[in-house]
C-alpha cells in the first residue's frame, strides 16, 4: 500500500483547546470587522438583488474602451467589464422601471450591433423581483439555520445545538465579511453557496460532536477540556481529508468551470475553509460553557 496517511499520526495529540482563547479573540475580531464592513461597505450586490440589466457580448476585436465610448454617450450609468476571455464583455445598466428595460436592451443592442459577434446573454431583473429574491434568500438561509438547529437538538442535547448555531452564524458572517472585503459579487448563486457552506460546516461539526458524545460516555471521569481535545484529535484526519477533497473539487471548479460559476466556487472555497476552522476552534470550545458532567449522558 502506498499509504501516505502516516503523515497524520493515527493518534495525534495536539492541544487544540489550549489555543482556544487565541482563536476566540481572532474570530471575535474577524466577526466585528465583518459586521463593520457589511454595514459600511456593504455587499457587491449583483442584478439579482439590485435590479438592472446585464448584457454579455463577444466582440470582433473591439476594445472595451470603444464600446464604453459608444454606450456612455447614451447612458450615464453604464459599466463595462472584461469577462473571462479578451473579447467577451459584460455590460451592466441600472434601470428604474420595468418598462425602461425592454427599450434599454433593444437600444443597447442596436448601438453596438456592428461591433458584436454574439449576444451571449441578457438578463433583466425588475425592482419588485430583486427585493423579493433578496427576501426569499434571507428566508431560505434563516429557515435552514433553524431547521439544522432543530435537527441537532433532536439528535444531540440542546447544548450541542447551541454550539453548532454559534459556529454556523460565525461562518455565515465571516464569509459575508470576506465577500464584502474581496468585492465578490453577491448573487442568487451566493445564497446557494452560503446554504451549502452551512450544510458543510454543520456536517463537520456533527462529526466532531458525535465523537464528543461518544467519548463523554466512554471516559466518565476525564476532564472536559482533555476530553474535547481527544475528540478533536480522533476526528482530525477525517476533518482534514474531507476538507482537502472538497477543496480539490472546488479549485477545479474555480479554475475550469467557466466565468459564470467562478464567484460561486470562490465563495465555497472561502466557506469550506472557515467552516472547517470553526468546527474545531469555535463549535467545540463553545461546549465548555456548559457543565456536562453532572448530567446524565446515557442518551
Amino acid at each position, binding site marked *: 500500500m502506498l499509504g501516505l496517511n502516516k503523515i497524520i499520526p493515527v493518534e495525534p495529540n495536539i492541544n487544540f483547546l489550549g489555543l482556544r482563547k487565541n482563536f476566540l479573540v481572532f474570530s471575535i475580531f474577524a466577526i466585528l470587522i465583518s459586521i463593520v464592513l457589511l454595514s459600511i461597505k456593504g455587499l457587491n450586490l449583483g442584478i439579482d438583488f439590485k435590479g438592472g440589466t446585464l448584457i454579455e457580448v463577444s466582440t470582433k476585436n473591439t476594445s472595451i474602451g470603444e464600446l464604453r465610448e459608444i454606450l456612455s454617450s447614451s447612458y450615464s450609468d453604464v459599466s463595462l467589464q472584461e469577462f473571462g476571455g479578451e473579447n467577451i464583455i459584460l455590460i451592466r445598466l441600472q434601470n428604474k422601471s420595468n418598462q425602461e*428595460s425592454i427599450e434599454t436592451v433593444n437600444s443597447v443592442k442596436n448601438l453596438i450591433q456592428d461591433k458584436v459577434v454574439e449576444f451571449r446573454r441578457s*438578463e433583466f431583473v425588475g425592482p419588485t423581483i430583486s427585493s423579493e429574491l433578496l427576501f426569499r434568500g434571507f428566508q*431560505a438561509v434563516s429557515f435552514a439555520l433553524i431547521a439544522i438547529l432543530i*435537527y441537532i437538538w433532536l439528535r444531540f442535547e440542546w447544548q450541542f445545538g447551541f454550539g453548532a448555531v454559534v459556529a454556523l452564524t460565525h461562518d455565515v458572517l465571516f464569509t459575508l465579511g470576506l465577500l464584502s472585503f474581496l468585492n465578490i459579487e453577491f448573487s442568487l448563486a451566493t445564497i446557494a453557496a452560503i446554504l451549502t457552506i452551512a450544510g458543510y460546516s454543520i456536517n463537520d461539526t456533527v462529526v466532531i460532536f458525535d465523537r464528543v458524545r461518544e467519548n463523554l460516555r466512554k471516559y466518565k471521569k476525564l476532564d472536559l477540556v482533555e476530553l474535547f481535545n481527544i475528540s478533536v484529535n480522533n476526528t482530525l484526519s477525517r476533518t482534514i*481529508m474531507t476538507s482537502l477533497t472538497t477543496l480539490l473539487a472546488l479549485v477545479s471548479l474555480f479554475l475550469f468551470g467557466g466565468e459564470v460559476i467562478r464567484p460561486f466556487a470562490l465563495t465555497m472555497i472561502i466557506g469550506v475553509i472557515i467552516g472547517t476552522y470553526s468546527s474545531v476552534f469555535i463549535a467545540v470550545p463553545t461546549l465548555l460553557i456548559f457543565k456536562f458532567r453532572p448530567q446524565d449522558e446515557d442518551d
Partner: protein
Amino acid sequence: MRNYPIWKSFTVISLVILGIIFSIPSIIYDDDSENWFLKNKINLGLDLQGGSYLLLEVQLDVLYKEELENFSDSIRVLARESSSKIKQIIINENNVTVIFENTKKIDEIKSSFLQMYRGVNLQHKDNQLNINLDDIYKKTIQDSAIKQSLEIVRKRIDESGTKEPLIQRSGKKRILLQLPGVKNPERIKELLGKTAKLTFHLVDNENEEALNANIEPFGKMIVKDIYNENIKYLLDKRALIGGESLVDAKGSFDQTEGHAVSFRFDTDGAQKFGKITSKNVGRNLAVVLDGVVITAPRINSPITGGSGIITGNFNAQEASDLAVLLRAGALPAPLEIVEERSVGAGLGADSIAAGQIAAIIGMILVCIFMILIYGTFGALANVSLIVNLFIIISLLGTIGATLTLPGIAGIVLTIGMAVDANVLIFERIKEESLKQTKVFQIVKNGFDRAMSTILDANITTLIAAVLLFAFGSGPIRGFSITLSLGVIASMFTALMLTNFLVYMYLSITNKKELKL
C-alpha cells in the same frame, strides 16, 4: 465470501448495473431520439441549452381602475333612465362614491345596479351610494384576468413558432415563460408587450369645441393618432364592435395603401358590422388599437361581407405581427416584463464544456489523492466515487430533472464531498485496527461505528438542500437537486458499494492483517 449475504451482493451489483445502464442515454445524448430508452436523458436548463426565461406581471391595477369607471358610467346611465340627478361622483382608489341631489330613486338605482354587477359591495347612506371594490370582487377580476392572459399568451407564443414553450401561472398575478432555443427574445417581448385591444368607434366631427378644449363630454373620449400625437379624434366612448368578433387576420398587401392587415368577422360580427356601416354612411369610423387611433377612414358604402382591411404606415413585419396579435386576441390587461434571463446557445455550450472539464479534473484530483492516502482502500473508494457519478446522472435522467449550470457545480461539489463517507469509514477502520486483529471484525466495526455519523452529517446537508429547493428559483433549484441526489447516492455507494468492495477485496486476497 465470509459473512456477506448473497441478497446484499445481488442488490448492490444490480443497483450499480442499473445506475450505469440508465446513465447511457444522458451520455450519448441523442437529441431527437424517439427510442423509449434513449429518451431518459437529462433535460438541459435554459442556461445550458440557450433560450429565454421571462416573468410577466398582469397589470391588475389597470383593470381595477377600468372596473371603477364602469361602475360610475353605469350609475350615470341608471340615473339618467330614472331621471334623478347626480351631484357628484368621486372615484377613489378602491371605491366610487356617488352623491345624488335627493334620495327619491336611490333604492331603485341600487337594485338595478346590483342586478348588473353581482357580488359587488354596495353601501347606501342618505343620498350617497358607496360602491366598493373589495378583495373578494378583486379576486374574481384577478383570477379571470390571469386565466385569460395565460390563454392569450399561449396563443401568441404558438403563433411565433417557438417549440416546446413552458407557460404557467406563477403566484398571484404573474405568468412564467420558458422558451428554449429562442434566438431573438426581443421579438417575443414585443409580441407580449402589446395588449392588442382592437375596437371600432364612430368619430364625432361635430363637436370641434370639446376637442379643442380637450374636454371629454359624457359618453365621448378623445384619442390620439398613432403616428402624430397632435392629431386627436373625438370618438364615441362605446365601441361598436371589437377584436373579439374577429375570426381571422392576415398580413396583406394593398396596391394603393401598401402593407395592411386584412381581417374577417364571425357571422354575428359581420351582421353587426354590416348594420353599423349601412346606418352611418358618410361618417368616419376609427380603428383604435391599445388606446390610439390607427386609422379613421370614411365609410363610403355599407360593408356587408364581414371582412375588411386595416391600413396604416406598416411595414411587412409590423403588419404580420399585428395580424398575429389580432388572431390571438386581446389581453385583458397590459403585461409587464419583470424579469428576463436569456442565454445564447454559444454561452450554453461553453458552460457545458467548462463544467465537464471541471468535473473530470476534480474527479482525477480526488482519485489521486485518495490513492495516495489510503492505497488500495482509496482505489476501492474511487470505484464507488465513479459509480456515484453514474448514479447521479442516471437519476437525473430518469426522474426528468433539469440540469442547470449551478447544477453542474453541485455535481462537482458532490465529487469532493462524496468521499467523506468513505473517509469516515476508513478512519474508523484505522482506529479499530489498533484495538484488534481479526480483519473482518475490524471492517465490520468500522462500518457500523461510522454509520450514525454518516447519517447525521448527510441529513444536515440534505436539510440545507431541501430548503434551497423550496425557496430557490430556476437554476438554483438545479443546484439543490444535484446536491441532494449526490448526497443520497454517496450514502448508498459508501455504505453498500464500498462495503461490498472491501469485503470482496479482503476475501480474495485473504489478508490476515489490516494496515490502513
